[in-house]
């Protein structure tokens, strides 16, 4: 048993090292894209603005100016923090910095990644108001943020169901669950761009999905299947043996933490540190609905699919034999076992379903924003906030909590800076524990 575990861990490590570099390695760089948006919303590049770059120690790295596309890019010697400073005097006639104080921006460059610095410029046509117009509390803004929040909440809820069900059936708090979300994103990304030829070079001549990338919709399907398989694998080779060995839940919890670090840096090694987005459907133009809410077609579609999937999950849990078995094991494992339910089989199914849902959530998150290898870590705290808010281990709590966290995050930007919106969600999490530790749908006896 122990040997099997060691062997499988080594195999996974070997797999990751072999997989390294389906993507050409890119050097570290810093980059600025300087564009000015006129009143009609058309973007024009700002050409010839001069930048200088220093590293964290203040040593000069280099300088340059934006090209015809408004882009200034400079290779830097390695990962780390770099500070870009713009010379406002070199801006073209009539173009000013939106915030005249902010002439310097510090970016963090990940290994193999590009640090994107953002400088807001204005042509004065709106008096620099394009930035501040976004910050008032208007009905339109509230509506938009609510819909954005529901979207994020649906994805979070879907991704978090597995976390809650795994806790319910086994008592394990799985800190690696969010890496299953990242796994789904990267699986879809991989098949969207490369196909299997990305790993097995000899397949390059074969048809898609072997030799070439496929349309994202197919890639997403593959990702969900792989996500289910990943959930199965984790339970079959790692957690099911641990349960049989009688390793305590706390020790298993620490194992999930080791696993999450391992997987996260595995993604970094394989896919590099850059922001990633899919090949299809990246640049969709939004349409305005009811004169209030801007949504792209992919936003609509992913939200509808999420709702359908969540309704199906709800129906399965409420009505089918296996759903009832899951809830029974969640409620009282011993009682379920003595009434003839195959508990280990139910747990395995929960891992498979949780992995598939997390993978789908990862794909959808990747469609709604650009993400990188830290996706899992960014989602970790949010899904924990959602699941704790809804009630750890309760069946529908993940969904309710996820929706609340998603809306809370988006709506909080009405009052607090965007950079702090996730901190707000985490603060709410702590607040909930203070007053209702069992969560909204939880029962009081769950804690203690």
């Amino acid at each position, binding site marked *: 048993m122990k040997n099997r575990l060691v062997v499988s861990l080594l195999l996974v*490590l070997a797999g990751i090292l072999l997989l*390294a*570099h389906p993507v050409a390695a890119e050097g570290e760089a810093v980059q600025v894209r300087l564009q000015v948006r006129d009143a009609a919303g058309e973007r024009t590049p700002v050409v010839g603005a001069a930048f200088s770059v220093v590293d964290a120690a203040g040593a000069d790295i280099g300088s340059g100016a934006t090209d015809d596309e408004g882009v200034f890019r400079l290779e830097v010697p390695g990962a780390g923090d770099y500070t870009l400073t713009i010379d406002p005097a070199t801006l073209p006639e009539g173009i000013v910095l939106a915030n005249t104080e902010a002439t310097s921006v510090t970016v963090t460059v990940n290994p193999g990644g590009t640090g994107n610095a953002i400088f807001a410029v204005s042509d004065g046509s709106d008096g620099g108001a394009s930035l501040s117009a976004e910050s008032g509390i208007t009905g339109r803004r509230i509506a938009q943020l609510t819909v954005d929040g529901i979207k994020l909440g649906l994805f979070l809820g879907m991704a978090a169901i597995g976390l809650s069900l795994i806790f319910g059936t086994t008592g394990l708090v799985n800190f690696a669950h969010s890496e299953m979300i990242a796994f789904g994103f990267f699986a879809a990304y991989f098949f969207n761009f490369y196909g299997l030829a990305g790993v097995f070079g000899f397949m390059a001549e074969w048809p898609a999905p072997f030799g070439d990338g496929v349309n994202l919709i197919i890639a997403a399907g593959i990702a969900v299947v792989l996500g289910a398989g990943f959930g199965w694998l984790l339970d079959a080779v790692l957690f099911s043996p641990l349960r049989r060995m009688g390793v305590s839940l*706390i020790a298993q919890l620490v194992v999930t933490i080791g*696993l999450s670090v391992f997987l996260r840096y*595995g993604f970094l090694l394989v896919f590099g540190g850059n922001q990633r987005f899919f090949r299809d459907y990246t640049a969709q133009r939004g349409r305005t609905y009811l004169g209030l809410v801007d949504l792209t077609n992919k936003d609509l579609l992913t939200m509808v699919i999420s709702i359908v999937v969540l309704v199906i999950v709800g129906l399965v849990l409420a009505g089918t034999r296996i759903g009832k078995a899951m809830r029974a094991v969640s409620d009282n494992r011993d009682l379920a076992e003595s009434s003839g339910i195959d508990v280990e089989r139910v747990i395995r199914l929960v891992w498979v379903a949780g992995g598939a849902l997390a993978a789908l959530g990862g794909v959808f998150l990747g469609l709604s924003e650009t993400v990188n290898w830290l996706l899992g870590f960014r989602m970790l705290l949010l899904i924990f906030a959602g699941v*704790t808010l809804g009630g750890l281990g309760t069946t529908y709590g993940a969904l309710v909590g996820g929706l609340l966290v998603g809306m809370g995050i988006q709506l909080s930007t009405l009052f607090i*800076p965007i950079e702090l919106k996730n*901190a707000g969600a985490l603060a709410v999490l702590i607040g909930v524990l203070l007053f209702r530790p069992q969560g909204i749908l939880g029962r009081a006896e769950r*804690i203690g």
Partner: protein
Amino acid sequence: MMFALDMGRVMQETMTQAFGPQAVVFAMAAIGLNIHFGYTGLLNFGHIGFLAAGAYGTAIAITSWSINPLLSIGVGIIFALILALMLGVPTLRLRADYLAIVTIAAAEILRLLARSTALRGVTRGAEGLNEWAGGFQNANPFTGIFEFGPFRYLPMQMAIVVFGWLAVIIVSILVWLLMRSPWGRVLKAIREDEDAARALGKNAYWFKMQALMLGGAVAGFAGFIQAVDKATVQPDTFVPPITFFFWTALILGGAARVFSPVVGAILFWFIIVFSESFLSELVADGTIPDSILASTEVSNVRFLIMGILLMTLMVFRPQGIFGDREEMALDDR
């Protein structure tokens, strides 16, 4: 196979770092974690937050309030104590895994706040606080580069190595004395069976709070050492995965043993630095082709090793090297 590796360089780098300033920081932080987890059974996954509190407390005391550098260390520790109180009040009555979730969230909130523009006036955002360590550098009795055997330290590193390890030993002895006292026995009783301890009339909540604050203060001091070593306090040096490094170091040595955090920290850095510089030698001389592992990626492999190390230790030897399996029967509460 050609084996033209420069093992001398590998060993020098390994030994220097295994006993270097970072190992001091890790040993001190792991002592704090040992008080939390080893002796009291608290699942603290936001340990890096205490280091951040200690480091920022010291730096802010000097930059914003112009306090005497020696007293500023105290300010850092007070920051860490306040953080412990704020974490403990909502969570110490709850089951152990809730503390795990809250501590990891709180540490991340602290980092996000520290790098936010809202607090830019105090914390200087992502750039962090520089130019406050002058007082400590001036007080450094060491000058020149120190070389003896495989070790090689700059003057400030030398000061941290000498005074830091001294502090580690003093704190270790204090912890040892405390844990032998009746107070320490109550902590262990709470770890073993909280209900039993409560039944005997001990206020388990208050004892856990004291342990959280004591361990937090020790970790705050570790944060101060790290800040002086780097001569800067930047929010992104306090990322959550570092907490898991402390855990690995602690479990490596064996929790609930006085000197195990120290040995664990040294071993942790030995393993990490050795494998990293050995790998980069292999990459440099072409034994490992660039297509498998580029030289720029070697430093990330340490995280993979760390993840595997934590998993295998937890499964096969949760008591670590020195620990006693009886004492480390990790139980759920």
